[in-house]
C-alpha cells in the first residue's frame, strides 16, 4: 500500500515527467525506437562480398602500425591519450623524451642520439625508423607498455588500446559464425535489446538521481519531516519502499521503450525463433544495476546533507565513466564501470567472451547500491532520533 502511495507521489512530480520526456526524446533522436532499417541477414558466400572489418590481435599488423604511430607522435612530441577518459595531448619533457627515444632505439637499432635528432655537430639529421624484424610480439608489448607509462597511461599503446592497430577484414566464415551466434544465442531480439541498452544506459545511470533527490527533499520542502519521523513505520521499511518505488518508476518506462524498440523488427524474422523476453531480460540485467546505483547515490547523499549534492557526485562519476567508455564501445567491460557499452548490433562473440566480467560488474554495482541504501536507512534513523541533521543544531 505504501509502495503504491510512493509510486503515485513520484508520478506527480515534475522531475519524473521531465525524466520521461528526456527518455522518450533521446530514444527517438538516437533512432533506437525503430531498428527496422538494421535487419540482420545471413552472409552470402559471393565473390568480393564485403563483410566489414574488425579489430583482431594480429601481431604482424599491430607491431608495424603501432611502431609507426609511436615514431610520428615522438617526432611531434604530441601523444594522444585518454587517461581518465578525457582526450588529452601529452608533451614529454626532455628526460622522458630521451627514455622514449631509448624505447624506439631498442625497437629499431637506431642510436638514441640520432632519434633525438642530434649528431656530434649538433645538427639535425633525417633518419628512417623501421621496426626490427627479430622483435617478438611479447617483447614489443613490453616496450609499448613502458611507452604508455611514460605518456601517463590511456595512450594508444596501452594493453587494451594497442589492439586498435589490428584492423582486419571479416571473412565469410567469421561472418557466418557471428550470424549463427545471433541466430542461436541472441535469437535476434537479444542483439537489438543489447544495442538498445547500450544507447539508453548513459541516461539510466544519471537521470534517476534527480528523481531520488526529489523524493528525499519532498518531506523537508513540504515541512512534513516531523510528522513522518514520529510515525511508527521503521526507517528500513520507509527508505526501502521509496527506493523500490523510484526504481519501479524508472524501469517500467524503460522496459516499455525496450519493447517498442524490439517490436520494430519482430515481423522481419518470420519463421525464426525469437526471444520475446529479451528486452525485459536485458533491461533487468544490464540497466537495472545502473539505475539502482544512481537512485542509491541520490538517496544517501540527499539524506546525509539535505542538499542535491548527489547530482554533482553521480554526475562526476557518470561523466568520467562515459568518457572512459569511449575506449570500450565494442563491448569490452571492466569491473567498476557504471554504464556497460556494446555499440554494435550483434558482435555476440565479444559479448560472450566478456560476459563473466560484465556479470561480475553488474553484481558489484548492485552490491554497492544495496550498501548505499543500507547506509541511507542508517542515516535516516539517526535523523529521526535527532542524532544527526538539523536538529543537532541550536534551534529557537
Amino acid at each position, binding site marked *: 500500500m505504501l509502495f503504491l502511495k510512493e509510486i503515485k507521489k513520484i508520478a506527480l512530480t515534475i522531475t519524473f515527467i521531465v525524466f520521461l520526456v528526456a527518455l522518450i526524446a533521446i530514444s527517438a533522436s538516437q533512432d533506437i525506437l525503430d531498428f527496422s532499417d538494421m535487419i540482420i541477414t545471413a552472409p552470402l558466400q559471393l565473390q568480393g562480398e564485403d563483410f566489414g572489418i574488425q579489430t583482431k590481435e594480429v601481431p604482424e599488423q599491430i607491431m608495424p602500425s603501432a611502431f609507426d604511430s609511436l615514431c610520428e607522435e615522438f617526432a611531434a612530441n604530441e601523444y594522444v591519450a585518454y587517461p581518465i577518459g578525457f582526450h588529452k595531448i601529452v608533451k614529454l619533457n626532455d628526460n622522458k623524451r630521451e627514455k622514449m627515444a631509448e624505447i624506439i632505439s631498442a625497437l629499431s637499432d637506431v642510436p638514441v642520439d640520432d632519434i633525438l635528432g642530434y649528431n656530434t655537430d649538433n645538427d639535425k639529421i633525417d633518419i628512417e625508423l623501421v621496426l626490427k624484424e627479430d622483435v617478438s610480439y611479447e617483447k614489443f608489448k613490453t616496450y609499448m607498455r613502458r611507452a604508455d607509462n611514460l605518456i601517463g597511461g590511456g595512450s594508444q599503446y596501452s594493453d587494451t588500446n594497442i589492439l586498435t592497430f589490428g584492423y582486419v577484414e571479416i571473412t565469410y566464415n567469421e561472418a557466418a559464425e557471428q550470424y549463427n551466434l545471433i541466430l542461436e544465442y541472441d535469437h535476434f531480439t537479444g542483439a537489438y535489446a543489447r544495442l538498445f541498452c547500450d544507447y539508453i544506459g548513459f541516461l539510466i545511470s544519471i537521470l534517476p538521481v534527480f528523481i531520488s533527490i526529489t523524493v528525499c527533499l519532498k518531506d523537508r520542502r513540504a*515541512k512534513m519531516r516531523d510528522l513522518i519521523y514520529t510515525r511508527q513505520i521503521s526507517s528500513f521499511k520507509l527508505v526501502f519502499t521509496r527506493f523500490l518505488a523510484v526504481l519501479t518508476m524508472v524501469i517500467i518506462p524503460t522496459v516499455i521503450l525496450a519493447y517498442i524498440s524490439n517490436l520494430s523488427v519482430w515481423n522481419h524474422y518470420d519463421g525464426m525463433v525469437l526471444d520475446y523476453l529479451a528486452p525485459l531480460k536485458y533491461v533487468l540485467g544490464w540497466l537495472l544495476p545502473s539505475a539502482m546505483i544512481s537512485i542509491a547515490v541520490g538517496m544517501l547523499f540527499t539524506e546525509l546533507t539535505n542538499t542535491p549534492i548527489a547530482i554533482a557526485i553521480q554526475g562526476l562519476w557518470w561523466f568520467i565513466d562515459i568518457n572512459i567508455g569511449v575506449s570500450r564501445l565494442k563491448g569490452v567491460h571492466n569491473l567498476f564501470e557504471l554504464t556497460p557499452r556494446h555499440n554494435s548490433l550483434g558482435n555476440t562473440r565479444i559479448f560472450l567472451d566478456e560476459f563473466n566480467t560484465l556479470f561480475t560488474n553488474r553484481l558489484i554495482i548492485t552490491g554497492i547500491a544495496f550498501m548505499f541504501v543500507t547506509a541511507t536507512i542508517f542515516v535516516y534513523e539517526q535523523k529521526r532520533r*535527532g542524532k544527526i541533521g538539523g*536538529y543537532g543544531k541550536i534551534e529557537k
Partner: protein
Amino acid sequence: MDNTIRIENLDKYYGNKQALSNINLTVEQGMFGLLGRNGAGKTTLMKILTTLLQKKNGNITICGIPIENSKEIRKIVGYLPQDFSMYPTMSVFEVMNYLGILSGIGAKERKDRIAFLLKKVNLSDHKDKKVKALSGGMKRRLGIAQALLNNPKVLIVDEPTVGLDPEERIRFRNLLCDVASERIVILSTHIVGDIEATCEKIAILNEGSILYYGTVSGLLETAKGNVFTKAVDNGELPKLKKEYHIISMHTHDKKTHIRFLSDVCIDGAESCEPNIEDAYMFYLWKNGATTDFHGGEK
C-alpha cells in the same frame, strides 16, 4: 497500565549551550500546560518527548516505556509540531491516509478512523480539498487529526494556536479539551490564555529550567495580594513605569487605569484578584526571570 510521563533530571545541550537544565516533571492523564517565553526550551522538551531529539542526561518514561525505546514510543505518541505543513497537492483525505499507512494502521480501520477524526475536527466536508487550499485554522485542525490517527496515549501539541483568529483559537482549545478526556495532552504555548482556558496542571519553563510546577489555582494563589489597579494621570505614568511592573493599562475618562505588580500596596491603589496572566508575570518577576516590562516598553 502506567498513564504517566515521568521526567527526571533531564539535561539537554546544543554544543556548549544548555537548552534544558535538570527538568523534573510528572504528567498525568488530562491536559497539561507548558508555559514559557519563546526560546524557553519548550520545543526542545517536546522534541525529546517525541524522540526527535536526544537527551544528554536524565530519565524519561512515557506510560512506563523508556524514551530510548523510540519504536514503542512512536506507537503511543501523537505529535503536532509548531511549524508544520503537508504535501500541498494532496487532499485532506489523501494526506491522512498516507500518514495512517506510516502509522501502521490497517486499511479498514484507517478508513473508519479518518472519517471519525475528520468529523471530530469538523473537516469532513473538506476531505477532498487540497492541503494548499486550507486556511490556517483548518490546517491546524488537520494537524490535530493526523496526530490522533494512531489513537495515541499521549498527544503533544506545540504552540498550536499561534496565528489563529480568536474564533479558531477557542474552537481549537475546545477540541484539545475534548480529546484530553482519554489521554495525556501536553500543550506547549507562550499564550497564557490557552493555558487558562484548558489546563489544570502546568509548568512554567524559563531559560531551560522549570520555574513553577503545580496547579493553575496554586499559581494564582502565589500572586494573591500582589496585583493592584490604580487610575492615574498621564503625568504620573513615567514615574510609575519605572517603579512598578505594569502588566496592562487602558485609558478611560481622561485617566489611565493601570494594573501592576507590587509587594506592597501604594496610595490610591486597590488590590485585585489575579488572573493567570498576572500570576505568570508575577512568578517570572519574583524569580528574577524578568526585570523590565514597563507597560510594554522596554
